[in-house]
């Protein structure tokens, strides 16, 4: 209706552009994480992730084991070879890609000479490295000990899953992933049934105190979680649950309950009265009405809450830190990342990115496949 009466909005261009800018701004950080997680760790240190498609200039060091390889010729003792083919570096330059852009003999200045130049070696003799990596060292007296050759090469971008391999094996993300799953599934399933019965009673049964109970649920909806930590942990310790999976399932069941009741009640209240009344007239009990009519009809709201609760539990850090023991046997991913990896792998950006992506992959999948229900649930919760 903005363009009523032939007034095509002149702002159309501006709108398209600003939305584009907003979307890009919102996506770039996540994109950076994803790209970084599949880059080689040396390349991450060398250039920004936005330069991923561009070859990277990297500095390498090779030790040329001179005494064994030198051959005596007319020109003196000669060592020949190719710096790009040295075994520990070769994976960078597969299929003859890559080119030497500079070389040197001292680590303080690895780019002292251009390819093809002749460099004086400190121990006597000269060194030449060509752009294709082949080198030639010549000395009259022969080489007594290995020579360090430093070179800078243009390296093709390298996409790898090494970071993921590392976090999943060495850093224990695999175990943490299973632990997160173990926490999330029961903590999602169990509250639903309890809440559904309560929501039905609050929506369709008449009794004294209903209004007070609904108000109480609304109030409890916003009780800060922080209040519950100390008293409940003490309670769990007293009754012998302690810090355990059982404890965290119970805790999440409790903390998710107000939202579950709230969402489900709001939805159930909106179901057509006729169906329920005619079922009553036909002699159905409340229990039958609930299981046969209300539950199947409330599927969208049940799904919405299930998604909420699943995302919330999966992403939770606070409850897991307090109600689960801190050893790696039961650590969930958020705790592992926040407490261990950031400390021990703080500067290892590729590892951190891979770990973060492992932890957000499932929520993103849930989000993009079930977005419809999520949006519906949000709207049921807050828009009348």
């Amino acid at each position, binding site marked *: 209706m903005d363009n009523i009466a032939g007034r095509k909005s002149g702002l159309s261009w501006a709108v398209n552009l600003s939305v584009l800018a907003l979307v890009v701004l919102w996506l770039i950080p996540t994109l950076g994480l994803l790209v970084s997680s599949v880059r080689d760790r040396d390349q991450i240190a060398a250039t920004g992730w936005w330069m991923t498609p561009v070859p990277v200039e990297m500095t390498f060091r090779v030790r040329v084991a001179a005494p064994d390889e030198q051959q005596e010729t007319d020109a003196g003792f000669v060592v020949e070879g190719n710096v790009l083919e040295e075994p520990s570096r070769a994976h960078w330059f597969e299929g003859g890609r890559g080119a030497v852009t500079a070389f040197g003999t001292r680590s303080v200045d690895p780019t002292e000479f251009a390819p093809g130049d002749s460099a004086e070696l400190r121990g006597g003799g000269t060194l030449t490295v060509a752009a294709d990596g082949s080198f030639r060292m010549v000395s009259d007296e022969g080489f007594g000990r290995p020579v360090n050759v430093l070179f800078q090469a243009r390296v093709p971008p390298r996409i790898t899953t090494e970071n993921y391999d590392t976090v999943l094996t060495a850093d224990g993300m695999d175990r943490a992933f299973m632990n997160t799953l173990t926490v999330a599934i029961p903590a999602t399933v169990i509250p639903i049934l309890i809440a559904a019965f309560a929501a039905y009673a609050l929506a369709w049964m008449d009794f004294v105190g209903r209004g007070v109970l609904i108000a109480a649920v609304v109030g*409890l909806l916003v009780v800060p979680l922080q209040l519950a930590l100390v008293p409940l942990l003490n309670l769990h310790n007293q009754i012998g649950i302690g810090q355990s999976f059982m404890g965290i399932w119970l805790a999440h069941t409790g903390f998710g309950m107000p939202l579950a009741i709230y969402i489900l009640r709001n939805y159930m209240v909106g179901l057509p009265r006729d169906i329920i009344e005619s079922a009553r007239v036909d002699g159905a009990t409340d229990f039958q009405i609930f299981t046969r009519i209300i539950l199947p009809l409330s599927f969208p709201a049940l799904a919405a809450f299930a998604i909420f609760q699943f995302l919330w539990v999966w992403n939770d850090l606070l409850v897991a830190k307090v109600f689960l023991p801190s050893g790696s046997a039961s650590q969930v991913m958020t705790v592992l990342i926040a407490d261990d990896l950031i400390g021990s792998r703080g500067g290892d950006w590729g590892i951190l990115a891979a770990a973060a992506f492992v932890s957000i992959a499932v929520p993103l999948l849930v989000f993009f496949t079930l977005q419809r229900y999520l949006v519906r649930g949000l709207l049921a919760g807050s828009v009348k």
Partner: protein
Amino acid sequence: MTPLLQGMVTILVGVTACVAYFWLSNWVLDRVIFPARGPNAGRNINRANLVRPWLFLFPAIFVLGLYLAYPVVGSFVRSLFDRSGTEFIGLGNYIDLFNSSGFRVALRNNILWLLVVPAAATAFGLLAAQLTDRLSWGNIAKSMIFMPMAISFVGASLIWRFVYANNFDIGLINAVRGVFGAERAIDVLQIPFWNNFFIMFIMIWIQTGFAMVILSAALRNIPEETIEAAIMDGAGPFRLFFSVKVPQIMGTIVVVWTTITFLVLKVFDIVYTVTGGNFGTHILPSYMMNFMFRDDGRATAVAFVIMLLVLPVMVWNIRQARRELR
């Protein structure tokens, strides 16, 4: 038993127990206590219907009471005792807190968060909702802006650590500064006071999608006639937005605002992951975790201060809900 198997068994036991409880309790009520036959059939049915709601509600009330209502009282009582929990010290913990500079900084930051984050997220959300409203690719755009909602606070913090990194080749902010000729990389998370805003932006980034989804639904619900009439009267797009649309969705804007406010008071993950509370960035929830497992008295005192901050909005919320009921 592996934890995952234990989880499956728990689901099975839990669900079976729930179903069994509801079915059995209803059965007992209808067949044993108040059978719907015999001389008192009618009276019994009425009585059964008086009791039944409480059967339906009992497990939920029990859980709510134990896990949310009891802790409010339990935390308050605990906060009146010293570290060991044996000696009653009245408001001693609170007095100590208000005398410590760390707590005052956390409180100040928290108030900043409360002022800035809900306002900014709602504003961005409203902007995004209005702009994407009639765009052909609006739904895709919305989906992208909404996406951070699915990401954990820890994940989001890591994502933004990359952006804020003190390094020209990792941190986007420094990279942009580098393009404009900056010589040295800076650590934006160590700039006193302003670092708080960089951390807040992470939360705003997450919550904008939430605000957008709800406000966009509200915008669609505005009666077309009001908009048509305004256009007929010659209102421009800005006038239309601020004088016609926004007033009509004010109720929803307030709901979004308060919802984000509550969230801001709970979230300790971001501060904890990004700076660990260093460089003067603590907020109350993260400050509380300093004492968790060490000094329960202090920890509960901080938690209760958070509760006091929530209280006014909570009361307002309950009143709102009661008004809707009538």
